[in-house]
Every structure is written in C-alpha cells, then in structure tokens.
C-alpha cells in the first residue's frame, strides 16, 4: 500500500550511495558528530552504556537492600534521589535499571532484525508464492495496533521481562520485513547484481556480500526509530505489571506503586519517570541527527 513512495525514496538514496566507499562512511560519521543533537543524544547514550557496564562499581547502595526505617526519605546528601517505600536507594536502583533499558534495546533490535531480515530478504529475492505468504502474514500482524500486538503476545507467553522483550521484538518484525523487502526490490534490479550473477555468484553470496551492505543505511535509520519506542513499550508493560516483575529495579516497575505515593513522596515517581524521559529523548535526538545525515534528500533547512 505505502511501499511505492518508500521504494522511490530508497531508489533515490541508492543512486547516491551504491556502492558505498569506506571514506563515505567516515564522512557521514564526521558530519553526524558535528550536529548538536547528535552530540547531546550520543552523550546521553554513552552515559547509559557506562552506567549499565559499571553499575555495581558506582552505586552507593545495594539496589535490593531493604531498610524499612529509611522508607520514603526525601532526596538528601545520603540518598541523592531519595528512597522508595521499602527504603531502597532510588539512585542505585536507577543505575541498575540502565542495564535493563540497554538489554531491552539490544534484545528487541536483534529479534526484530533477525526476523525482519530473515523474512524480508528471501521474500524480496525469490518473490512468487513465498513472498506472497510472508507478506500476507506480515499484513495480519500489522492489522493489530503496535501496543495491542505486544499485549497479545504477552498474553500468550505470560508476563515477564524476557517475554515482554520477545513480544516487543516480534512486534517490530512486520515493519522491518516490509522495509527490507521494499529496499531489496530496488537494489536487486541494479546492474552490479546482474554482473555478480553473471560472474557465477550464488544467491546466498549475493545476499550477504551485495545486498546486505547496500540496505544498511535505511536499516540503521529504522533501528534508531524503533529503539526509543521499544524502551517506552517495555517500561509501559512493566508499569502495567506485564513486564519485569517487582523486585527488579526496572524503571517502569519502579513506578508501579507510585500512584499511592505521589502526594507524600513524589520523588519515587519522578526519578524513574524523568530517567526514562531523558534516555528516550537522547535516542530520539541521535536518531533524528542520523536520519538527517543518512538521507541527503531531507534537508529541513537547518545547517548540516
């Protein structure tokens, strides 16, 4: 339905970037780093990765340690973000939460990418009834609104952090597969693929060596779009009690009981909520910058 404008857009892009020389990549990275939004977004992302990797070394308290006497104490020098209803240090819990956020991003992207590429590439490359079958299946999945599809999969698998990640990843597959397919349909008709085939290259070799490198840039852009939604969806599921389960210091889970304390202890809600906001904002900023750089057609007036 909406594959034609996308395909046309990709075609334009392909003409500009096929085949990508390596100094082209360098130039893209350099242009990206000059953008303010990429700097801010990238910075936030790096902080997140740092916290995820070195969390245990920098947290002042054990995030699972319950000290009832200190429950709901407001932010102070001892507890920068205050403590929650069981006296656990919020700052430490949020730092541990970075791991889950990163895990969600990586895991859902991998599932979406494997599923999307695994279905999209053969579908576009071979066409015929396989293409038909795969695309109708994707249409069925797209018949559900995104969150609803995730909820449906969670309902089947049962609520847990892993299952919520699987569900979000699976919900990303149909769009991913469609994108991959539409891009490949354009690439595979190009002369250099015909040349490869004339040289005797088999389908697998062509896919790995010629097609995948050429569809990378739209895929990277797409991933930058799905990562923030994945983090938001995971947090929302946990918040509803359908994702990560309570003792885990996942940011959404930390807000489950929050409603009961918004009057007496608003920091219990504000700390994880603002953290999610900043992280998602960071990825969005970085993704926007990436899109501007990778898609030369869309120069929205701002200096590149």
């Amino acid at each position, binding site marked *: 339905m*909406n594959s034609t404008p996308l395909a046309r857009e990709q075609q334009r892009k392909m003409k500009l970037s096929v085949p990508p020389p390596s100094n082209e990549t360098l130039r893209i990275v350099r242009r990206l780093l000059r953008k303010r939004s990429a700097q801010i977004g990238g910075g936030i992302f790096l902080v997140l990765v740092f916290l995820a990797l070195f969390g245990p070394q920098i947290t002042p308290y054990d995030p699972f340690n319950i000290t009832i006497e200190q429950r709901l104490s407001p932010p102070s020098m001892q507890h920068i973000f205050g403590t929650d209803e069981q006296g656990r240090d919020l700052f430490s819990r949020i730092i541990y939460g970075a791991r889950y956020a990163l895990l969600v991003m990586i895991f859902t992207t991998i599932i979406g990418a494997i599923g999307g590429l695994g279905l999209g590439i053969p579908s576009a490359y071979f066409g015929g009834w396989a293409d038909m079958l795969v695309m*109708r299946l994707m*249409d*069925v*999945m797209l*018949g*559900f*609104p*995104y*969150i*609803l599809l995730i*909820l*449906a999969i*969670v*309902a*089947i*698998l*049962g*609520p847990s952090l892993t299952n919520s990640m699987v569900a979000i990843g699976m919900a990303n597959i149909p769009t991913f597969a469609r994108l991959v397919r539409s891009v490949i349909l354009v690439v595979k008709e190009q002369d250099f693929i015909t040349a490869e085939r004339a040289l005797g290259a088999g389908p697998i070799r062509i896919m790995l060596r010629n097609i995948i490198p050429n569809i990378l840039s739209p895929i990277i852009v797409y991933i930058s779009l799905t990562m*923030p939604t994945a983090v*938001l969806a995971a*947090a*929302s599921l946990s*918040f*509803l*009690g*359908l994702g990560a389960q309570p003792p885990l210091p996942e940011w*959404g889970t930390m*807000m489950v009981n*929050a*409603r009961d304390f*918004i*009057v007496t202890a*608003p920091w219990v*809600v504000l700390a994880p*909520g603002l953290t*999610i*906001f900043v992280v*998602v*904002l960071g990825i*969005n*900023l970085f993704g*926007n910058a990436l899109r501007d750089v990778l898609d030369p057609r869309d120069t*929205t*007036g*701002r200096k590149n």
Partner: protein
Amino acid sequence: MTFLVKAAIPSDAVGMMFAGQLTETESAEAAAIIRAKFHLDQPPLVQFYYYVSDILHGDLGVSIRTRARVIDEIGYRYINTMKLAFGSLMIGILLGVSMGIISAYYKDSFLDIATMTVSLFGLSLPAFFFGILLILLFCVQLRWLPVIAGGGWKGIVLPAANLGLILSASIARITRSSMLEVLDQDYIRTARAKGLNERLVVFKHALKNALLPVVTIIGLQIGNLLGGAFIIENVFGWHGIGELGVKAIQWRDFTITQGIILISAATYVVINLIVDILYQFIDPRVKLAK
C-alpha cells in the same frame, strides 16, 4: 481489507487458546472440567473451528473467571474507551494540525524550534509518566479534578488530554513536513502572485493539499491511541477495555483477553477502512479500485 480482519483474528485466537491451556495446570480436576467446557481438551484445529463458528454467531463466549458473558463485560467499557479515544483524537488533531501549520509557516523561527522541541518532548515522554504528572498537577496541587477517573465526564478530561497531547506531537511533525512541501509548490507561488490574501493561500490552497499524509498518519495513529488507552486507563482508573484487558491478562482469563483484542483490532481495521474511503473526498485524484 475485510479479508484481513478475518485472517488476523482467528490466527491469534488459536494462540490465545494455548495460553489458557498452559496456565490451567494448577488445579488438575477443576481444570479438566473447564477444559471440557471450553473445548480446550480438543486438538487445536477443532478448537479453532468452535471459536470461528462462535464468532460468526456473534458469540464471544463467557469469562472463565467471572462466568459473565464476555460481551456484557466488554460492552459498556468499550463505549467508555471509545469516548476517551474520541476526546483524545479531537484534542490531538486540533492541537497537532495547528502546531504543524504554525511551525511550517514560520519555519526556522523561534516559534518553529519551540514547537518542534515540545513535540520531540511529547514523543519521548512515557505516556503513563505524563499521566502521573498531570494527576500531580491538577488533582494534587490544584485540586481541580478527581484522581480516579471512573466513568464520569469530569474524569475524562485528564486521560483525554494526556492521550491527545501525546498524539498531537506526531501529528504536528507530519503536518509541518507536509505543509513545508506544499508551500514550496508552484501553485502556491501562483496563488500568492495573484494577490490572494495569505490566510486564503495557507488555509485553502496549502492546507487542503497538505492534509492527505496527515489523514493517513491519523488513521495509523488511532492504533497507537487504542494502545495508549490501554496504558492510560490504568493510570487514571478509567473503566474502559484497557483497564479490563490488563487485568484479564494477569488473571489469565483468555476469553476476555481474546474478546478485547478481537474488538480492538476490528475497530482499528474498520477505522482505517473509513480513512481509506475518506481519501476520495480529500483528494479527488484517488479513486478506490473496483
């Protein structure tokens, strides 16, 4: 399109049946009775047959937990959710489209950058957190509105504002880029050259042409709106299908879950069908095939 509805729903229903089967293992005898009643002891294909034939008869079954008919459990809640969705949609469209127009018209000005920054914030803010902030401000600090929404008219204000504001963020972005493209076209220059006044140019000539992608996005965003309603209803305690749906998943009440997912997906497909038909009126170039 209708093929899609038929195809989409049963395929998922089969999966849901499995979900019921897996979780009923706790109490064996009770489970066996329930299973027989819900045909869960039959092979999947037979279950599938029962399910499809029931649906075709307009029967969604009974809740395994409360024994009430699914349709009764869902019915009034569905209306509540639709009220909420409609309210948010109005807020989202009004705010989003006007933000987009302003932003595109005063491109690169302070106003444009401010609007786009706000909309980026809107896209990054978790919906449920935004809801909590609204409660904190309007119910706790200002004491204007009740904390628990229930089903009354006063209760709808905050959840609808919540969903609507978030919706307006993406609508504003698409309106802006679509308006920018249209304002660059030759016929706009012609209209201006003719000496038409700016308001006429912007609203009649440009907006009319810029609306098509906006309508498409709105159609697709309704899916997000329904999904968002699932989350927001739980924040505000609004008695809609989302509130029930989440509970049903936790209770493993698969008939209710099934019913809710079925009805939401059907709503989504029907709305997009309506959007497709609307194209004809917005853009006379579009003719529906067949």
